[in-house]
């Protein structure tokens, strides 16, 4: 096990290095000139050249990348061209909100997915099943901005039950989490349904029923654990994805997450922030997958031996 872990960690480091290199190259060939942007619209050629030199953008490309990597090794993500502060500090400031939304969003989608997935599996081919599956389909195909604006308009602007934007209290998190949850729940519902249908037909379930266990017990104790593995794998993916920022939801609800920071930086060609956010979200994706993999043997004894 330690060996496997070490190998997976080494792989993760390799992935991050690859991401850093690819992002660095892509951003270098971005058709925008950071030095001219920093020097401003009234700059002359000399001012632009000065800034280019100060930022180290006149160095050969491999040297620039080497400098970035050595900085990275010391936890230094560089300074933002536009916001003129440490990229690491800007990202760290946005991690709490990102974590809260990630956790709340996953909670809502898993809870909804479980409830409706079980319902659909147990009542297979009934009207309820078809309704749930249709809704799941609508959910996963709805554009985020439509759902986000709709919820905002109805529950915040019109009914006034929740604040329209911001971060800080439990009430603030409800609508953004609900948006993510409603859209993501469909995936979970479908997965839970199919995992359970497989199991519900098996002999041991019939045996459990035959020995007099209630449906409720059979479903929750015997059938549901079989759906745990794909759910956890899926959560692992969502952790990474949500930590990379949910740009649209964050924008609509004024949620100070990483997605907003990234989107803004892309609009402004703020290269150090784009680099930093890409690396940090890659880190979360890799970590999310690692954790899901690590949880698998705990959840499924059959994997333990391998």
């Amino acid at each position, binding site marked *: 096990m330690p060996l496997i872990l070490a190998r997976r960690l080494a792989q993760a480091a390799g992935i991050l290095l690859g991401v850093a290199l690819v992002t660095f190259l892509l951003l270098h060939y971005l058709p925008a*000139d950071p030095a001219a942007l920093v020097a*401003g619209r009234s700059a002359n050629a000399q001012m*632009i050249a000065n800034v280019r030199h100060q930022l180290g953008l006149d160095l050969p490309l491999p040297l620039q990348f080497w400098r970035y990597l050595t900085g990275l090794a010391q936890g230094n993500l560089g300074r933002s061209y536009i916001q003129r502060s440490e990229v690491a500090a800007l990202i760290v400031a946005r991690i709490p909100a990102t974590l809260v939304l990630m956790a709340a969003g996953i909670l809502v989608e898993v809870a909804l997915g479980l409830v409706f997935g079980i319902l659909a599996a147990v009542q297979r081919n009934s009207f309820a099943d078809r309704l749930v599956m249709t809704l799941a389909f609508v959910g996963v195909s709805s554009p985020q901005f439509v759902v986000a604006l709709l919820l905002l308009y109805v529950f915040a602007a019109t009914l006034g039950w929740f604040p*329209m934007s911001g971060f800080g209290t439990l009430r603030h998190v409800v609508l953004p989490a609900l948006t993510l949850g409603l859209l993501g729940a469909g995936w979970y519902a479908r997965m839970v349904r199919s995992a359970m249908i497989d199991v519900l037909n098996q002999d041991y379930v019939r045996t459990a029923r035959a020995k007099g266990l209630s449906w409720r017990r059979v479903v929750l104790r015997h059938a549901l654990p079989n759906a745990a593995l794909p759910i956890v794998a899926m959560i692992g993916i969502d952790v990474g994805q949500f930590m990379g920022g949910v740009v649209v939801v964050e924008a*609509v609800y*004024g949620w100070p997450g990483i997605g907003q920071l990234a989107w803004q930086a892309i*609009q*402004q060609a703020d290269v150090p922030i784009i680099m930093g956010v890409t690396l940090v979200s890659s880190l979360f994706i890799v970590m999310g997958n690692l954790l899901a993999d690590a949880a698998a043997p705990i959840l499924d004894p059959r994997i333990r031996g391998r």
Partner: protein
Amino acid sequence: MRTSWLKATTAVMALGAGLAATPLRAEDMPTQGGTIVVTYKDDMATLDPAIGYDWQNWSMINGLFSRLVDYKFGTTEIVPSLAKSWSISPNGLVYTFTLDPKATFTNGRNVTAADVKYSIERSVNPKTQGPAGGFFHSIVGQDRMADGSAATIAGIEAPDEATVKFTLAQPDATFLNVLALNFASAVPKEAVEAAGADFGKHPVGSGAFRLDEWVPGQHLVFSRNTNYFRDRPQIDGFRVEIGQEPLVAVLRLQKGEVDIAGDGIPPAKYLEIKNSADAKDTIVDREQFETSYITINTAKKPFDDVRVRQALNMAINKERIVRIINGRAMPATQVLPPLMPGYDASYKGYPYDVAKAKQLLADAGLKDGFSTTLYAMNTDPNPRIAQAIQQDLAAVGIKAEIKALAQPEVIAAGGNKDQSALTWSGGMGWIADFPDPSDFYGPILGCGGAITGGWNWSWFCDKGFEDRATKADAMSKPEDKDARYGVWKAIFTDIQAQQAPWVPVFNERRVVARSKRMGGPDQIYIDPTRVIDYEAIYVKK
């Protein structure tokens, strides 16, 4: 000749008169107190006065710091600030300022002449990596500081604590305007050095407000500086909330949660609000020193032929483009906006005349038209405007491919001599740094701006106009002011009539939404030099 500050003003009388003509209702009298909420979508960039140069931070930096001179609120009239008086030598080369002894930084220390010198040198210093250096070009020794060969600017002297003396290399009629820019704000050296590169996050100034709190990505809290040496501001403080979508900000404003929606009213919501009962109290809609234009790369075939450029000018239906943005602009005839001194009301520009445009193209040997590229910003409404331009060009046989890009990429494309063709400046049209016609020349039509990464996207560089511009700016005597505006007027009219490097499309008005409890005339919400004047706005009783 000694000149009092009153005589040295560069007031635009029309603006002053407009302000005086707006009578205030009794319930709308300025009151002291109240804290307001302002929203913006984008994060606050730095609050460092040597660096900050955007719509958002400009007003806030203006309120945090003081400069030698300032503008009377809502106008373009220069008034004393850190300097309580000044004199200008007869040859226009030496400016001597006497500081107000009451002025202190929020760290408690008096503002001295040495601070003023240090602060301007810091703005010019290449190590600051700021956009400001070029504005101070008239001062003797600015060039040596800017290229890094000198550690100070010889032309700024502080003979005693209360006296600052500037020596100019050539007379500069705009010098007081330059000293009123945020870039000339006084900063205390000890606080700058203590904060290191993060002074922009921990600003210390001598302005009307101080920064109490800044949570990155969320909000900033400003409060009134109780030791401010002037008798303002009205409000006790303001809270800036960021990350707010303009649409949501306007919804919140309608519910009374927000007092100023800094990004204005999004097009989708504009007509609804404009036609609502609250429109009069909530919409501030005002002209500004702005022109949005299409640049034509004069260095590139076939645009090097003036007939082609004139044909483009006649091909564009500006009225229709104005309709696309709900009429929030006036069709432009020339480079300067109507508010700017030097605007030529008698010059009507090129008419919209498709037949004439085709004729000019035929005369230039382009009867069958040609293909080109139109760069534009990718944020609404600019792609829609670019499409309208594309259709207008197609009507005269010009096939333009639209490249809608993020702002930095449009700037890079326009600022590249080989790449630039046609560029729609919308979303980043030129807005004057200070209320003087010269600001519409240098960076966007002068040879100095025709550099890679610069803003002269027409790559227009004409020796004759360059000489005329230099001569105009040397007319720095106050009594020559009107004559100088006349010279600039002729320059801009001649540029368009003879060379047509631009298609001036419209002069966009600025629209700000404010809550019903906010008081005061429109010009303090869209101030010609400050954008929002936090010192002057107030909450109604």
